[in-house]
């Protein structure tokens, strides 16, 4: 049948000549490729000890950010959970009490904030929806685990650790 695209090449097998029949040149050619690789740089990375740099726009584990005074930015507005296509996010909000102004930035905060990492597809829509710039997917890969319940990450794993400001004249203990 005639080819429609005219790009078909019909191959015909010719009988091998003398050099091809003794196979030795082909064997040496193959061996030389193998030996060449002994002297090349090894691309394998020994993963847990050595880590490849992440690209800038890599989306890994979420982190809940703090503001410049170390207070939690999240106000539990629920827009991340609303935008989440996998419905991985859930939260319970609470009202900030008097004396907690140094902990939470706004009147309302997330008392419980959970992300189910098995559900999460790391699309980054929560990051985009957040009006308070509180959530970013700037972590590394979410590590493997044995139990399903261990994949529900609470605030203990998500909230960014407190960074300590040292004011001028003060000393850290």
């Amino acid at each position, binding site marked *: 049948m005639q080819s429609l695209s005219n790009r078909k090449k019909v191959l015909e097998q010719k009988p091998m000549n003398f050099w091809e029949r003794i196979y030795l040149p082909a064997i040496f050619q193959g061996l030389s490729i193998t030996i060449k690789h002994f002297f090349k740089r090894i691309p394998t990375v020994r993963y847990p000890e050595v880590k490849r740099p992440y690209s800038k726009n890599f989306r890994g584990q979420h982190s809940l950010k703090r503001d410049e005074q170390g207070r939690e930015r999240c106000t539990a507005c629920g827009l991340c959970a*609303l935008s989440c296509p996998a419905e991985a996010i859930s939260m319970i*909000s609470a009202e900030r009490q008097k004396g907690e102004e140094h902990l939470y930035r706004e009147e*309302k905060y997330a008392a419980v904030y959970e992300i189910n990492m098995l559900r999460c597809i790391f699309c980054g829509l929560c990051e985009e929806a957040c009006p308070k710039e509180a959530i970013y997917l700037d972590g590394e890969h979410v590590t493997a685990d044995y139990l399903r319940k261990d994949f529900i990450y609470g605030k203990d794993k998500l909230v960014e650790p407190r960074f300590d400001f040292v004011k001028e004249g003060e000393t850290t203990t």
Partner: protein
Amino acid sequence: MAEDIKFKVSIDGIPVEVPPGTTILNAARQIGGDIVPPAMCYYSKLEGSGGKCRTCLVKVSKGSEKDPRPMPKLVASCRTTVMDGMEVQNITSPEVIEARRGVVEMLLINHPLDCPVCDQAGECHLQDLGYEHGLEGTRYEFERRTFDKIDIGDKVQLHMTRCILCYRCVFVADQLTPQRVHGILGRGDAAEISTYIKNAIDNDFSGNVIDVCPVGALTDKTFRFKNRVWFTKPVDAHRDCPTCSGKVTLWYKGEEVLRVTARKDEYGEVEEFICNTCRFEQKATSDWVIEGPRKIKHTSVISANHYEQLRPPAVVKKNLTLQEANKEQFERADRLLP
């Protein structure tokens, strides 16, 4: 004889016949759809409301049959009554759209954009209005006005910073409750909703100020920060109440009734006012007779992520082959929907 007189009005080119004395806004609501001007302060159930927020501005391009001159300025449609042969332009007039944008900007000047914290977010009229007409940023460089926090009782939370001074709650206090205990103090920029000598609001119908408030200035304290509106599920229910009609909407989260509100129509106005017992005390499913899920506009954020409704594309309606092909889908939708 006089009762039979009907005025012919056209709004954005759509003719409608209404009795004399009807306002342009109500004439537009008889037509319905996109041409209804938005209203922040007008409330059909409250006498004397309207004329304050200016979001319902329309252009009258022909005054009446007898006097066809156009009105010199844009008019507030909630306060202007129709004349025979009047021609009104709402969304067809760029002037109106421009004016409305200005009004929204003015309303938002002192509004603290704390929607992530506000309990009204998701059913806030100012949010909708700002979304449709507003600018993305503000041009206002000064500090927004702030107020001292005033406690007006254990049921209603007042956030004066969010108030747009629509006076709806004052009309509720005037017309629904026997003794008015709150009103507007101060004038102009310093005007604020408050109670007289910090009296707590304590009336059978005082909870209705929550429903009539177009923004989050008056919110339910029992629902405060409990959940976001769009994660709760509205269900119509009624109960035998001695003081009110008892027809309400329950907002469920799981098994729990998080709050009770009156039923609101498409313009965000309550169908019937409910009493405080229904609103604040009865929060168990056993107190109510459930009627069924509340219909929410599919454009509302409250119906986001709810996929139960089948919306076949328009082409399916005309094509019998396509209807046959999707038969199973349609049957399933029929079964799920009451």
